[in-house]
């Protein structure tokens, strides 16, 4: 037998080591390249962007106050992500999707819709960045 009892484990070890090191460094090259582009583009993470958008509202909401959340984003995952990110930014207020609460955060990423603020709501705060805190108008 060409590959003897002693050679086989040693060969297996050598092959595995070469494979593992190559995989690490192929990945390293790709990640380094991506990171360089990220830095050149002065990329920012999405959490920081949403936190900045929501920052003016944080002080207006009481801890554990339930607030509605609505956005003009249509794509399901993006919509969910901005809601969860807004919850992260506004904790410890509770942010739930929908209009069932006296206070609602309306989060516009495109221009304001033609109708503007929905009827029955008055703006409490306009952050100037497309984010409004709306209050249900008292009848």
């Amino acid at each position, binding site marked *: 037998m060409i590959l003897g009892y002693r050679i086989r484990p040693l060969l297996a*070890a050598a092959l595995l080591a070469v494979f593992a090191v190559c995989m690490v460094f192929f990945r390293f090259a790709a990640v380094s390249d991506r990171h360089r582009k990220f830095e050149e583009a002065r990329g920012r*993470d999405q959490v920081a962007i949403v936190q900045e958008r929501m920052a003016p509202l944080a002080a207006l909401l009481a801890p*554990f106050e339930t607030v509605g959340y609505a956005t003009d984003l249509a794509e399901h995952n993006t919509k969910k992500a901005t809601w969860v990110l807004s919850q992260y930014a506004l904790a410890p207020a509770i942010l739930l999707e929908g209009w069932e609460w006296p206070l609602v955060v309306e989060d516009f990423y495109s221009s304001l819709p033609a109708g503007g603020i929905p009827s029955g709501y008055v703006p409490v705060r306009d952050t100037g960045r497309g984010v409004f805190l709306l209050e249900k108008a008292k009848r």
Partner: protein
Amino acid sequence: MNPLAWIPTLLFPFGIGYFLTTFFSSLPGGEASGCGRCLFRLSLAGGLGIGLVSALFFFWKILVFPSGQYFFWLETALLLATGALAVLYGRRGKTGDVAPAVSPSEWDGVSLCLLAALLVSLLAVAVMFYYFSAERPHGGWDAWGGWNLRARFMLRGGDRWTEMFGRLSKEMHPEYPLLTSAFIARGWGYVGGEDPALPAAVAAIFTFGTVGLLVDAVSFRKGKIQGVLAGLLLIAPPLYVLHGSSQYADVPFGFFVLVATVLAGRLARSGEDGLGTALLCGLVASFAAWTKNEGILFLAVLAAVLLAGVALRVAGSRFGARNVAYILVGALPVLAAVAYFKLALAPGTELLELQGKEQTLPRLLDLSRHLQILKAWAWDMSVGYFGPAGILYLLLSGVKAEGDERREAILPLSVLILMLSGYYLVYAASPFSLDWLLGTSSSRVLLQLWPLYLYLVFFLALPPVRAGRLERVPAPPGGEAAHRKKRKKGSLRH
């Protein structure tokens, strides 16, 4: 933020973990099962300390001060107490009666080359970890949408922090256990701000701690070459560092699963009452349940395997009932935290709540769902984790597990198979869209068992034995246990 505050934030838990491991290794059975080895203690210390401090902080907030104030003093007292235990008992336990499977050879050319490859690769992985953390300082979706979100509520919620469990949307999983969240909340309180570097540091401790633990666990039984190779293959897949830096709880969970299973396997092999090893095993296993919901499945699996070992003496298992009792004692304190959290605070899990005979049975009988799961797992295991590389390695090098080794391998193998079966069943019965569930969790679920899988591969593989270098130690008459007894009595001289 006070930079000096990082010392108690990270070094205190590390010290507590290190001292506690030293103490456990000094108890009967601790040293023999390798708990006293330097790399083991250093690698385990961070994770163990984080787990312990996290559970204590939870109790403190529930029972003493809901806002968490004065916890620093309790932690300082714990550090001093564990330090004293380690100093008083640490030296006493150094009996030197470790019986490794291969002789403690010096580093030779091959193993040194492999060690250099591992260290250079680790450096590259550390740089990648830094890049990922710089691009996503708050981690991935589940980090800001779950683990770190709950940490924010624990910190910002003050006395009312427990309200989050009943009021947060279920999509943010308020029912998930609090190991990482409580630790991060406590740390943010210490440093005086929500510095994203803290969850990133916690993620790094577990990501690199797992490497150290795996290298040590394999080296202890199979020699340095096998240990270093296991470490290399652990970090090779791109998903390991990606998920590690995402600040998810899957890597911490895999860390605890690896340690608890390896220690339980060593107890099954020794056939002696191992108080220190069993207590540590129980404590670490309970941290798995304090980390993720899957930890409850892990505890059930571990308990089932241990009890089966005691009852049936499968394949000559010498696992004593007393060891099982010690494991239970070790697990009880943290299990109390898990039980209180699950019964009094956490809302129900949708995955279970949405089950019913009429809905679940058709899902389980749907063949296309099974094919879908197997396809996703095959893809993740091969492309994501290079799992077949381990199998090929086994085929090429050959399998070697006899007698005591086989006894030691049965336990981790059973745990791995049962855990995979449990995950499979959860996917098959899931009320959610299987496409979505597999797409968002399959690779992370497999990551939880990736270190344990590698441990088994390298434990079973025939190590590269070179004439005159690594020689197998001939088994002493009567097995290792009898050998140790003789050494204790002084009838064997070295």
